[in-house]
């Protein structure tokens, strides 16, 4: 269970709103500060793990609520579509332009530009950049919504009705995010590749047939990319939901929770990216 009345900040980075509790707690220094930071990190990792396991439990055993999941899918997926399309479109253009400029200095032969770009996009960049964008948009939304429900004591009301807020609030967002993150990232990869292709054609005269070269992409790359989609799709609602549920202290607390959700979701995306890339390197090298 998330702490119902947290008295100690979860993270040093997510400084709590000023309250009288802070004045009472002794200022820690030196080794003690390191120890307390490590302990709080460990505690929040444990809470995240517990939240994740309970979400999975409710996905399997909880009540069926297709309407709520659908609404969340619409909120997370379709409403992020325009944002993600624009962002990934520009990123595709920028990356191909810069990569082409650099490659032209090394070897003035850009026939493999599309192949390497596609491999990079599928293996890493589409999922990671797309997920970072989603973390800012979706994570902030989830944390703000749940955080304001916490500070207005709607979550406590749910608990009083013997309804677990994880089942009611986190689970639909989790399922929706898992599905829609994958869909959005596939879409944004297609967008980024298309804009990259257009850029390569207009800037470097690389024909679309040459650019559309899938020879460097193998099943390992695709599996890595899809695994990242799923991992990010799972991590964003869990981290953001945890931030939202651990909100305290009124509207200022909601603001802190939102900030923390975005920061921690982005951090989770980067850390998971590193872990999955390392695992993929070991498995598919």
């Amino acid at each position, binding site marked *: 269970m998330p702490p119902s009345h947290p008295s100690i900040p979860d993270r040093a980075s997510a400084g709590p709103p000023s309250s009288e509790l802070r004045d009472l707690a002794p200022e820690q220094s030196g080794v003690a500060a390191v120890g307390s930071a490590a302990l709080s990190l460990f505690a929040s990792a444990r809470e995240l793990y517990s939240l994740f396991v309970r979400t999975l439990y409710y996905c399997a055993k909880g009540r069926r609520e297709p309407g709520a999941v*659908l*609404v969340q899918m*619409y909120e997370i997926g*379709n409403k992020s579509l325009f944002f993600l399309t624009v962002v990934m479109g520009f990123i595709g253009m920028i990356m191909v332009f810069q990569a082409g400029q650099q490659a032209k200095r090394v070897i003035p032969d850009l026939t493999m530009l599309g192949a390497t770009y596609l491999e990079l996009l599928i293996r890493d960049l589409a999922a990671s950049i797309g997920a970072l964008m989603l973390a800012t948009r979706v994570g902030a939304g989830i944390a703000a919504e749940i955080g304001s429900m916490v500070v207005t004591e709607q979550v406590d009301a749910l608990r009083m009705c013997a309804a677990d807020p994880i089942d009611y609030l986190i689970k639909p967002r989790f399922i929706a995010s898992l599905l829609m993150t994958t869909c959005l990232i596939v879409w944004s990869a297609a967008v980024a590749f298309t804009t990259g292709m257009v850029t390569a054609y207009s800037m470097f005269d690389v024909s679309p047939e040459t650019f559309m070269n*899938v*020879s460097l992409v193998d099943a390992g790359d695709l599996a890595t990319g899809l695994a990242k989609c799923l991992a990010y799709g799972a991590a964003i609602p869990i981290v953001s939901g945890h931030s939202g549920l651990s909100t305290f202290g009124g509207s200022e607390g909601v603001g802190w929770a939102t900030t923390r959700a975005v920061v921690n979701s982005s951090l989770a995306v980067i850390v998971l990216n590193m872990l999955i890339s390392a695992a993929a390197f070991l498995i598919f090298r």
Partner: protein
Amino acid sequence: MASPRSIEVKVGILILTALGLLATFILVMGGVNFQPKYSLYVEFDNPGGLQTGVPVKIAGVEVGKLSEIHFRGGQLGKDGRREPLVRIQLRVEERYQQSIHDNATFYVTTQGVLGEQFLAIEPGSTDRPVLPANAVVRGLDPPRLDMLLAEGYELLHATVTAMREHREEVGEAFDGLRKTLKGTGEFMHRNQDRLDRIAENVEQMSLDGTDLVKDARQKYVHNPQIDRILANADQVSSTAARELPPLMTDARETLANARRLSTTVGGETEQAKIKKTLDDIAEIAGRARSATADAQEVLAHVKRGKGTVGALVMDEQLFDDLQELARDLKHNPWKFFWRE
């Protein structure tokens, strides 16, 4: 918020779009191909950077893919030689099978200078039989650039070391070469007229030589006389060839006879006899010579008209008398019987 119905449609469209994109990409990546295929095995000692899934191409057209790479560890073959280290399985579309003949060449090459590697097939000559499915062929190992670099480096290093250690000798050699070239140049310059003349003479000589050769050809090659001589020689040799065997048999017989004779004559008693006979013959000849001398003396006597026969031969009076007598007798034959 939109109505639940339109939400469902929008979400469905997004999911279907994403699934469609993913499926399309997987199909493109996997190289959707439902053509029937057959296997070929190619053996290499070092297939370079080939990996499973790289394309197999004939004349730049993709005809299949590399499906497996087995490391075989260089086992000894039936003929006692080490087999190639790596065997590669190719899956080639059956519609291209008729183009690959059993003297086809399989080699590893790259797309562009630094592009990806692929396996290329040079299809072989059309008069050879088609390579059957599951055939094992030997591939052409790709050029070992690393080996080339290593060996080239060694060569260069040795050259540089030699140059460095023998700097003076090399300098002297170059100096000598420079002097020689300079001397030659000066010589040429000094004797330009003569050299020109020499060149003209050589040219003239070559022209003359050409004429000479032409004439000689006319005289000795395209000459009926030569042909005749050759024909005669041919005839002689053929005759000789025909006649020689009987001659040889005769000669052999003669030699046999001679040998028999020599064996007969070879004994000491026979030789003594022959010597005696020869002595006798010499004596006889001596006697004959003295007899001849006597006869010559007699004849000289006769010539001088001495003696009866001499008078008869040498006295003309007598001859006239006799002639007259003979004439008289011819006219008056009865004088033999009648005495006047």
